[in-house]
């Protein structure tokens, strides 16, 4: 009876809802036009000439993924450096959405500068963000990338990645004898070597604070896992076990590493406690379990296993130890990585004999192929989840290159690499914020 009442009530409410609710209009799509940003050359009050121009760095950064169009200074109608000087009409005329004005001022300390700037919303004539920062004249380049990050975050609602770095392994080539673990800024600047070895180096992975890198090195003849501090170069070897020691993946809390050991006869997943220097077994299966990656919440790991016959992606809950298969499409799915939201993963997917990077929504099961290159390997996700970097072959030059693609598949790019032997890229977390 009560159930029937509910039905009647819901029917009546349903049929009458139209008559009593306020009109609701849903907007599900927008224009494809990129957001237009203008950054007026900052006022410069120092005696010496500027070593570089911040607006040029910001323009290059913001345009790198084709998400913004940045107005060039020669197209501007006025050059305000303070919010009070802005005539919004000028900028509306130029169809600018966001305007950045600011100045670089002399500091009392030698070699230091004070930078202040504002991000303004032109349509509503409002200040979106105001910042004052201090820095050394030498680090002006990094300050520029930092301003780009701020602008990106304020406008797009996700962190900018222009201050992040990418670790990669440079393979020996014609003019180079050793394996080289290197890091570079995402714009190809500041490329430097961390560790050189005549034996292979594999699978670099960043600590969550961005201060250390874990990797596998064969310098002792067998595969061993090391961690290395970036600022000091200090290396630490993890307790070595018989057989393969590979694929380290730093846990989100930074306290442990997931890795692969074959001491039980075949490769299984283990957890390494960095404080107690001890291993704990996670999976125990006669198949191969490898390439673990932590979920952003630290509750589970995804890994590649051939337990069903072909390599597929599985997920293990670290506390319940329950294993669940995640991929069913195709006969080769490997090297999976979580996106920062934990709801999607990317992995190497073989389709018609060609290896591509696929994006897989764990909730809906939808799979999309992001790349159209050849022999795509070891994808790594940017910390804001918007860009993927992977290793691939440049067919024409027959070299190994690092290529990138935005998660919507729209923008593709190649990272400039001098040697042509770049493999296994690993994207850093968001690094020091001002």
């Amino acid at each position, binding site marked *: 009876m009560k159930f029937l009442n509910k039905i009647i009530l819901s029917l009546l409410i349903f049929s009458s809802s139209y008559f009593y609710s306020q009109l609701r209009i849903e907007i599900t*799509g927008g*224009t494809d*036009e990129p957001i237009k940003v203008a950054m007026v050359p900052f006022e410069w009050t120092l005696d010496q000439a500027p070593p570089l121009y911040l607006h040029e760095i910001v323009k290059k950064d913001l345009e790198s993924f084709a998400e913004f169009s940045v107005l060039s200074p020669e197209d501007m109608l006025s050059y305000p450096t303070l919010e009070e000087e802005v005539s919004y009409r000028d900028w509306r005329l130029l169809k600018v959405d966001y305007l950045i004005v600011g100045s670089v001022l002399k500091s009392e300390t030698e070699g230091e500068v004070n930078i202040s700037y504002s991000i303004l919303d032109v349509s509503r004539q409002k200040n979106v963000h105001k910042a004052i920062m201090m820095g050394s004249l030498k680090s002006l380049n990094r300050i520029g990338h930092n301003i780009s990050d701020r602008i990106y975050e304020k406008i797009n609602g996700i962190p900018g990645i222009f201050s992040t770095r990418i670790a990669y392994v440079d393979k020996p080539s014609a003019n180079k004898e050793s394996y080289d673990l290197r890091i570079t800024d995402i714009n190809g600047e500041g490329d430097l070597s961390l560790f050189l070895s005549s034996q292979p180096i594999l699978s670099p992975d960043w600590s969550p604070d961005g201060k250390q890198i874990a990797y596998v090195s064969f310098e002792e003849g067998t595969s061993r896992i090391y961690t290395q501090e970036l600022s000091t170069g200090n290396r630490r070897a993890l307790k070595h076990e018989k057989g393969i020691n590979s694929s380290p993946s730093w846990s989100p809390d930074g306290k442990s590493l997931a890795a692969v050991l074959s001491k039980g006869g075949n490769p299984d997943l283990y957890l390494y406690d960095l404080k107690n220097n001890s291993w704990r077994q996670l999976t125990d299966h006669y198949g191969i379990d490898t390439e673990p990656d932590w979920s952003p919440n630290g509750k589970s790991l995804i890994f590649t296993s051939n337990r069903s016959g072909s390599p597929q992606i599985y997920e293990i809950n670290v506390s319940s130890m329950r294993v669940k298969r995640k991929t069913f499409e195709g006969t080769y799915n490997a090297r999976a990585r979580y996106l920062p939201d934990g709801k999607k993963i990317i992995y190497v997917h073989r389709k018609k004999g060609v290896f591509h990077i696929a994006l897989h929504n764990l909730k809906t099961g939808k799979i999309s192929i992001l790349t159209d290159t050849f022999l795509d390997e070891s994808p790594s996700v940017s910390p804001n989840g918007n860009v993927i970097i992977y290793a691939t072959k440049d067919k024409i030059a027959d070299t190994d290159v690092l290529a990138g693609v935005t998660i919507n598949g729209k923008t593709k790019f190649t990272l400039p690499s001098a040697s042509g032997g770049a493999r296994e890229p690993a994207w850093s977390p968001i690094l020091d914020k001002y």
Partner: protein
Amino acid sequence: MQNLFAGFFISLLIHMGLVLSLSNILNIDLLDFQAEYSAPIPAYLVFEQPASTSKKEYRRIVINEVTPESKAQVDINEMVLKPSQEILILKSKTARPTIVKEKKINLNEKNRILIFSSIIEEQIRAVWKKPIVPEGLSVELVLSLVPTGEILDVKIKRPSGNEAFDRSALIAVARVNKFENLSMSAKLFDDNFRNFTLIFKP
């Protein structure tokens, strides 16, 4: 006896509910449900008799061909309309419906709300630059208009939790500033468009 009554009453309610909900789903306006629908008038009658002598009302829509230069911001093909509104889907891509004013039109109210809603939607879509925010966000704004279409006020009714996303919606509304092509009766405007909710969902 009591049980019989209860049964009768419940059955009455169920049927009422069914009729109301079905009419809503099938888009039948019950108040409009009169003889004119059941008895179509022969065409010659329309021309022989002056409109004033007939109590009947006609649906009539005239299509204006619009040159590409003067193409309205509204693309009629973009509108999502129910089958009963398909009379409005027009011959040409650039065509735009104008409703003949000299005769009283009997385009039911719901249809008219839908059309004007689409007109508003199109104008917002054309200027909304959606940022790359996390999936699943939505923000609700409440707009207050004056009958000329000008936006008097906009407020966030339910924020998305992402400041940049909320701002993008506010900017889109600010860029529209005034909605074009919203000429409607004062009653329709007051009942529906003086204050309404806009939901932005990427």
